Every structure is written in structure tokens, then in C-alpha cells.
């Protein structure tokens, strides 16, 4: 009996460790392979120049890097405030209302909608009325993906704030809006920022919703209501092209994308860290 117990104990220790290894193995191999393949074409020229026509060596993805920044940034500007406010409504104001139940349901369904479908919707509601593929349309598509995810994340983050802290605010004769903004949001700042970063990272890597919204552009974009190049679409085009140096540049583009998202993540987390929010 005793032997068996010890054996079970060992087994149950080894299994989780094994699972962790299996989980991080793809991450490590992707990172290593990405760096290995990506550094080849990664140089100053790649970061600062426009793409060269087929056959000419060199050229870069500067317009795509800037374009991704614009489209994702714009999507964040549209999506984050809407999602955070919607999350506040779900957690604080309308918790048990029918409207909240409906919003929750559709937010959950929307998260499971294939991203290409989101692209089609954005094409129908933004591109066709505007009469042109545009950065705005791309941002709208990405915002549509960001909002349901971030709304639910924000709601869950706000629900973790203990009731007695909210009551302490109310008991000081403060109106609910002030308690929500001053205390609840502040208490949940960490998990909300994590949600924002996860959401941004996710949409920054999307290609399908941009294919027929932002389209692509071989040159610098010409305003926000014209087609714009993004890293993901450019990587896609280069990766499926028959030219070896374009394939190589696609790897470099992927490496730049990963580095940018990681860098942004670290930067935002450092800036958003509050020394006041840790409850001991």
C-alpha cells in the first residue's frame, strides 16, 4: 500500500512537469526558428526602406511596420475605451439586467467567429460605403475582434474587486461613478492592462480581417482612408511568393512583428505597474 502511494505521488509530480515541458516546447522552437530564419534579412535597410520590385535585391518593410502600428493603434483607440466601458457596465451597473445577459452572450459568440468573417463584415459596413480599402476599415475590423474579448476580460477583472472596498467608497458618501472610476477601476488595473495587452497582441497578429479591408500598399500609405500595408498581410504575400529573398524577408517581418508585440507588452506593463494596487 505504502509503496503504491509513493509511486502514485511520484507519477503525479512527474506528469505536470512533463506537461509544462510539452507546453513550452512549441514556444521555444518557434522562437529559436524565427530568430534563426529571420536575422538573415534583418538589417537597417529592412527597417527603413520600401519593398523593391521583384528581382531587385534589398528593400524593406518600413511601410508595413508603420502601417501595422497605425492600424493596430487605431483599433486600440477605438476598441479599448468601448470595451472597458462596456465591461464596467456589465460588472457594475447592469450586472443582472437582460441587456447585460444579451451583451455577454453576443460577446462570447463573437469571440468564436472566424476572423475572416469579421473581415467580410468590415468590408460590407466600412469599405463599401467609403468606396475604398482603408486603414480605417482595417482598424474597424480589428476593433470588432478586440471589443468582445476585452469587454469580458474587463468585466471579470472588475468582479474580482472585493465588495467591501466598493462599500467603503460608498460609505464615504461618494457617488457610484466616483467609486467605479477611483477605486474599482484602480484596483483592477493590473488584470485589465493584461487583457489590453493580450488583445492587442492577438489583433496585431491577424491577417484575414485585413485582406479586404486595409488591403495592402507597396508604398507609404496616403492618409487613413486609403489602402495601407501591414506586416501580417505583407508577410503573407511574401511567404507565398516564389522568390527566395521574399520568403526570407517574410521571416524577418515575422521576427519584427513578434519583437514589436513583445516590446510593447513589456513597455506597457512597466508603465502601468502601480505600487498602490498590491493588497498584502
Amino acid at each position, binding site marked *: 500500500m505504502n509503496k503504491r502511494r509513493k509511486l502514485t505521488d511520484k507519477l503525479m509530480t512527474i506528469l505536470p512537469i512533463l506537461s509544462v515541458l510539452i507546453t513550452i516546447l512549441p514556444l521555444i522552437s518557434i522562437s529559436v526558428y524565427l530568430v534563426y530564419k529571420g536575422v538573415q534579412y534583418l538589417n537597417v535597410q529592412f527597417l527603413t526602406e520600401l519593398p523593391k520590385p521583384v528581382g531587385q535585391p534589398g528593400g524593406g518593410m518600413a511601410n508595413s511596420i508603420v502601417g501595422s502600428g497605425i492600424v493596430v493603434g487605431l483599433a486600440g483607440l477605438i476598441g479599448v475605451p468601448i470595451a472597458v466601458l462596456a465591461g464596467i457596465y456589465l460588472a457594475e451597473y447592469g450586472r*443582472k439586467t437582460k441587456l447585460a445577459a444579451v451583451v455577454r452572450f453576443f460577446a462570447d459568440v463573437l469571440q468564436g467567429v472566424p476572423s475572416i468573417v469579421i473581415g467580410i463584415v468590415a468590408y460590407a459596413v466600412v469599405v463599401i460605403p467609403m468606396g475604398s480599402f482603408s486603414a480605417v476599415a482595417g482598424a474597424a475590423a480589428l476593433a470588432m475582434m478586440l471589443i468582445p474579448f476585452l469587454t469580458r476580460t474587463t468585466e471579470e477583472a472588475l468582479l474580482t474587486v*472585493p465588495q*467591501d*472596498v466598493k*462599500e*467603503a*467608497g*460608498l*460609505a*464615504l*458618501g*461618494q*457617488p457610484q461613478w*466616483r467609486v467605479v472610476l*477611483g*477605486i474599482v477601476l*484602480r*484596483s483592477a*488595473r493590473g488584470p485589465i492592462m493584461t487583457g489590453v495587452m493580450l488583445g492587442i497582441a492577438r489583433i496585431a497578429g491577424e491577417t484575414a480581417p485585413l485582406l479586404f479591408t486595409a488591403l495592402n500598399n507597396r508604398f507609404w500609405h496616403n492618409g487613413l482612408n486609403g489602402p495601407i500595408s501591414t506586416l501580417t498581410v505583407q508577410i503573407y504575400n511574401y511567404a507565398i511568393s516564389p522568390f527566395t529573398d521574399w520568403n526570407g524577408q517574410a521571416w524577418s517581418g515575422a521576427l519584427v512583428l513578434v519583437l514589436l508585440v513583445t516590446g510593447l507588452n513589456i513597455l506597457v506593463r512597466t508603465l502601468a505597474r*502601480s*505600487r*498602490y*494596487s*498590491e*493588497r*498584502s
Partner: protein
Amino acid sequence: MGIATKDLWVYYDDFAALKSISISIDSKAITALIGPSGCGKSTFLRTLNRMNDSIDGVTVQGDVLINGSNIYGEEINTIALRKTVGMVFQRPNPFPMSIIDNITWALKFHGVKRRRDREEIAAESLKRVGLWDEVSHRLKDPAFALSGGQQQRLCIARAIALQPEIILMDEPTSALDPVAARVVEELLISLKEDYTVILVSHNMEQAARVSDYTAFFLMGELIEHSPTDQLFANPKDNRTEDYITGRFG
């Protein structure tokens, strides 16, 4: 003047948590509310600053008079009421801000416009609860860096900074270690010079030590309300005697 209730009933849906409570509470004194868990003492406390408003299914019937006006009347706004009636909770619950901001945050909304004035009030309040010497050199530190007892005194300072007349305390020492509890208890006794204090307590020794009056609740009813020494030495009701001698609860 002061606090009085007349035929107060509070329901959670169909369940009557308080049954026909009529009580008159003395000003500038400590009144302890005692009774077993679920007897309605916390519900009663939270009725006095309308803290139950945000809980679903609560209905209040009867009159709750504070300084002569019915706080469940139509013309009452909870913001003004809660400025007059402060509250301290069981678990120390500072806000995720610096020590000083914990106190100044609410003042800003209550019309203290100048920062220097707010900070002055904060300093006064911290002195009043005996925390000033411990924190004056680190007012910008996070409130969570304080010990539990210090956090609870900060919460009391936060409440008195609004200059309330009444302070409601819901078992303010039960989450603290004995030494910190003792400090808070002594603070309570000193507070009655300026404030009317209503204290919910699970600890009968504490109620006997600090309070001037004691009210004994049982199953939603007010069984007995007398001067504390009288209630503990000479309970009028058998049920009070059973409870304070430890026969139940």
C-alpha cells in the same frame, strides 16, 4: 436628536431580518449591538446609512430617524446622509492609493477644493487616530504597506475626516491580532467624546469593556437595550442572560 427607529422592519425578499425594532440611541456614547450570528445586528447597522440599498431584494419598512428626519424619506440623499453617518468595516479595506490619498480622496468630492486644506484635514485625522507618528514620514507609501491594525486605524481616520456625527462599526477588531485590537478599542473609547458610536461586536468582553449601552438582538428582534453594566450584571430577559452566560450563540 440622535438616532431613533420606530417599528422598523427589514426584509431580504420574504425573510424578515429585523422585526419591529424601536430603539432610541444616545448621542456621544458607544452603543454595542450584540447577539448570535444572523440575529440582525449587522443588518440594523447597515440600515442606518442605507448600505443595504445596493443589495437586491431588501425592503425597509418603518421609520429611521437621524437628527429628526426620516432617512428613508423621499427628500433624503444618501450622499449627504453618509457624510453624517460614517462606517468602518470588519476587514480593514484601504483603497489602492497612498496613505494620504486614502483620506483626501473623499474630501475632494465633499467640496474641500484646495489640496493644502485636504492634506491638513488628513493630518488632523491621522493624529486623532494615533497614526500620525507612525506614518508622517511616509504619507506617499501605499496604504497596503501598513499592518492590519494600522490599516484599520487609517480606515477610521478616513471616516472621521468627513466630520460625521455618527460612526457605525461592524466588528472593527475581529480581523486584527489582540494587540492591534486593543489599540483600536482604546481609540473607540476616545471617539465617543466627539461622535456617536454604534459598534457591532461578537465579543462580549469587548462590548462590556467599551460600550455605555448594549442592545441584544435575537432572531431579528431587539430583546433588551439597557446601560451596559446593567445589562451584563442584571439582564431583564432570560434570553439575554442565556446568551451572555454562554448558554448559546
